[in-house]
C-alpha cells in the first residue's frame, strides 16, 4: 500500500523507462538531424519520425478507450483528422493572408479589408469554384481560437455522439459499426466542395509556418518533432495516471463486467462518455501535430479504414498496456511505410512476383488475425516477463 507515498516514476518503473527511452530517442534524432546535427537523419525521415510519434499518441488514446475501457471505437481517426483540419485552417489562412499582402505591396494604395478578404477567399477557395470565405472560417485568422477549436470541435462531436450511443446502451460490435458510420459520414461530408473545407482538395501547404517564411524546413521539422515527442510523453503520463487511479479500476471493471459496475452504484454511461471524450481530445491533439508535418490533409484521411488501422496497431502492440500501443503504432506504421514505399525487395517466385506494395495489406491482415488468435497480449505482452509489478 505504498501506492501514494512514492514519487510517480518510482511507482511506475515502466513509465520511467518509457520516458527515458523517448528522451534518449529525441536527443539522438536531434544530434543526427540536418538542422543542428550531422544530417544522418534526413529532413523527410525526420518528418516520418515526428508523424510516427503522433501515431503513437493517438494509439495511446485508442488503448485507453478500447484496451482499458472496452469500447472498440472504430472512429477515433475522425477526431485525429478534425484536429488536423482545425489547425490547418489557421496555417492556410494566415499564410495566404501574408501572400496576398505581399503581392499587393507594390500597389499604390494599401488593400481595403474587403479587398484583402476577397483576395484570400479567391486564393483558398478558387480551387472549388468559390471566392467567398465560408462562415466556419470566421476565426481562422486567430491561432489562439483555432487551437481551442482543435480540442473543442472533436470534443463536442465525441460528447454528442457518445451521449446518444451510450445512453441507448449501444455496446460491442454495434457501437463499432456506429463509430465507423460516424467517420464515414464525416469524410463524405468533407468531400463535398461546399463543405467549406475545400472538398477533396483538403488543406495544403501546412508545412509552412506563417510569419516564418525564412525558417528552413529542416528547422521547422525538428520543432514539430520535439513538440510531438513532448506531447507523447505528457500523454503517456496522463494516461498512466488515469489507468492507475480508481478511475482506471472502474473502467477496467466496465470492460470486464459492465452490469456489475452498475450495481455497485457507478453511472457506467458517464464513465464511458468521460473516457470517449478524453481520448477524442488526445486524438485531436495528435492530429493537430501530425498534419503540419504531413503538409496536407484531405477527407480521405478520415476514411473508415484509417480508424481500423488504429485498432490493428493497438492489437498488435498489445492492448491494455500503454507501451504496447506505442510499440504497435511505431512498429506497424514504420513497417507499413517501408513496404508501401517500394523499398522492400520484391520476392520473385518464378511464376509470380510478390510485390509488397500490393501484398503488404495481406501480410498486415494475416498478422492481425494471428496476433488475435495466438498472442492476444501482442508485442507488449513480451514485456510482462520482466515483472515490473504493474498489472494490466
Amino acid at each position, binding site marked *: 500500500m505504498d501506492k501514494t507515498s512514492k514519487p510517480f516514476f518510482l511507482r511506475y518503473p515502466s513509465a520511467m523507462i518509457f520516458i527515458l527511452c523517448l528522451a534518449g530517442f529525441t536527443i539522438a534524432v536531434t544530434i543526427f538531424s540536418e538542422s543542428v546535427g550531422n544530417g544522418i537523419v534526413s529532413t523527410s525521415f525526420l518528418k516520418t519520425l515526428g508523424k510516427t510519434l503522433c501515431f503513437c499518441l493517438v494509439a495511446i488514446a485508442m488503448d485507453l478507450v478500447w484496451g482499458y475501457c472496452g469500447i472498440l471505437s472504430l472512429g477515433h481517426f475522425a477526431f485525429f483528422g478534425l484536429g488536423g483540419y482545425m489547425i490547418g485552417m489557421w496555417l492556410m489562412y494566415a499564410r495566404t493572408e501574408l501572400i496576398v499582402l505581399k503581392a499587393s505591396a507594390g500597389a499604390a494604395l494599401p488593400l481595403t479589408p474587403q479587398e484583402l478578404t476577397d483576395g484570400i477567399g479567391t486564393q483558398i477557395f478558387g480551387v472549388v469554384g468559390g471566392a467567398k470565405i465560408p462562415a466556419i472560417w470566421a476565426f481562422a485568422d486567430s491561432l489562439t481560437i483555432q487551437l481551442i477549436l482543435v480540442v473543442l470541435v472533436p470534443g463536442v462531436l465525441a460528447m454528442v455522439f457518445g451521449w446518444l450511443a451510450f445512453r441507448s446502451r449501444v455496446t460491442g460490435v454495434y457501437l463499432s459499426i456506429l463509430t465507423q458510420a460516424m467517420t464515414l459520414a464525416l469524410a463524405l461530408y468533407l468531400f463535398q466542395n461546399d463543405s467549406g473545407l475545400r472538398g477533396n482538395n483538403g488543406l495544403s501547404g501546412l508545412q509552412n509556418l506563417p510569419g516564418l517564411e525564412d525558417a528552413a524546413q529542416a528547422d521547422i521539422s525538428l520543432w514539430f518533432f520535439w513538440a510531438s515527442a513532448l506531447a507523447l510523453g505528457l500523454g503517456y503520463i496522463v494516461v498512466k495516471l488515469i489507468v492507475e487511479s480508481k478511475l482506471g479500476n472502474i473502467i477496467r471493471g466496465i470492460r470486464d463486467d459492465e452490469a456489475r459496475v452498475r450495481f455497485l452504484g457507478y*453511472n457506467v454511461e458517464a464513465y464511458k462518455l468521460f473516457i470517449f471524450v478524453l481520448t477524442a481530445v488526445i486524438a485531436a491533439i495528435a492530429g493537430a501535430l501530425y498534419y503540419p508535418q504531413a503538409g496536407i490533409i484531405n477527407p480521405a484521411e478520415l476514411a473508415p479504414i484509417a480508424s481500423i488501422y488504429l485498432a490493428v496497431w493497438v492489437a498488435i502492440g498489445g492492448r491494455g498496456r500503454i507501451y504496447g500501443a506505442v510499440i504497435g503504432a511505431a512498429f506497424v506504421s514504420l513497417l507499413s511505410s517501408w513496404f508501401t514505399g517500394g523499398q522492400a525487395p520484391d520476392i520473385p517466385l518464378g511464376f509470380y512476383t510478390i510485390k509488397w506494395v500490393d501484398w503488404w495489406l495481406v501480410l498486415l491482415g494475416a498478422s492481425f488475425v494471428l496476433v488475435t488468435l495466438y498472442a492476444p497480449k501482442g508485442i507488449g505482452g513480451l514485456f510482462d516477463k520482466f515483472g515490473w509489478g504493474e498489472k494490466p
Partner: protein
Amino acid sequence: MSQRMLLEVQGISVSFDGFKAINNLSFNIGPAELRAIIGPNGAGKTTFMDIVTGKTRADSGDVTWGSKNVSLLKKSEHEIASMGIGRKFQRPTVFEEQTVTDNLMMALRNKRGPLDALFYAFSNDDQERVQETAEEIGLKDHTDRLAGELSHGQKQWLEIGMLLAQDPRLMLVDEPAAGMTGQERDHTVKLLKKMAETRAVIVVEHDMEFVRNLECKVTVLHEGAILDEGSLDHVIQNQEVIDVYLGR
C-alpha cells in the same frame, strides 16, 4: 401500509413475450430483517430481483423504498444502487483481473462520479475498512491476489464482501451457497445473519438445509406469485408447496 417497511412491492407484473414472469406480486420487508425466497426454477425469483434493482422494468404495479416511499420503477441501476440496494449475483461476479483489495475498494461507499474516482486517494480509513471486510469474509491473507485466482467459494465471499463494503440498507443475495463446502456454508450463514442485524437481507436459495439454518421467514414463489409465507416448518407442510416444489 406501515411506515416501518423498507421496501414495499405492490402488485407488480411483468411478462416477456406473453410469458408472465411476475404476476401481481406484492412483497414487503422491514429495515432489519432476514428473508429467504424459495421456489422452483422459473418461479420469478431472479426477475423479482431484476425489477427491484432496476434491470427490468415492471409492466404494472409499484416498488417503493425507504421512509419517504420513493418509487424505484423509473430509476436506473446505478441510482438504485446508490440509494442503498446491493446485489449479489447467482454466478459469482467479481472483477477477476483485479486484486481482492481493488475489488473491495471499488465497492466502498464513496462519491461515484468519474472525476471523484480520478482524484480518489486510498485513505487510511478506507484501507482499514477494506482490511476489516477482508477479515470478515476470510480473505485477509489473499488481499493482493487477483480475484480470478480465488476458489469458487472464495469468489462468492468476495462478492458478499463487496456488498458489505457498499454498506447497503437492503441486500439481495442470489444463491450464496452454490459451490461451497459444508464449512464454507456455515460461515456464510453466520455472515448473512450478522448482516441482517442492521439491515434487510433477502436470500434466494435452493438448498433447503441452508435455508433452515438461516432461521428466518420464508417466502415461496411459484409462477411469479407468492404461494405461501411463514416459517420454513410452516411452508413445507403446505400441500401446494409440496406439490409444486418439494415433491417435484
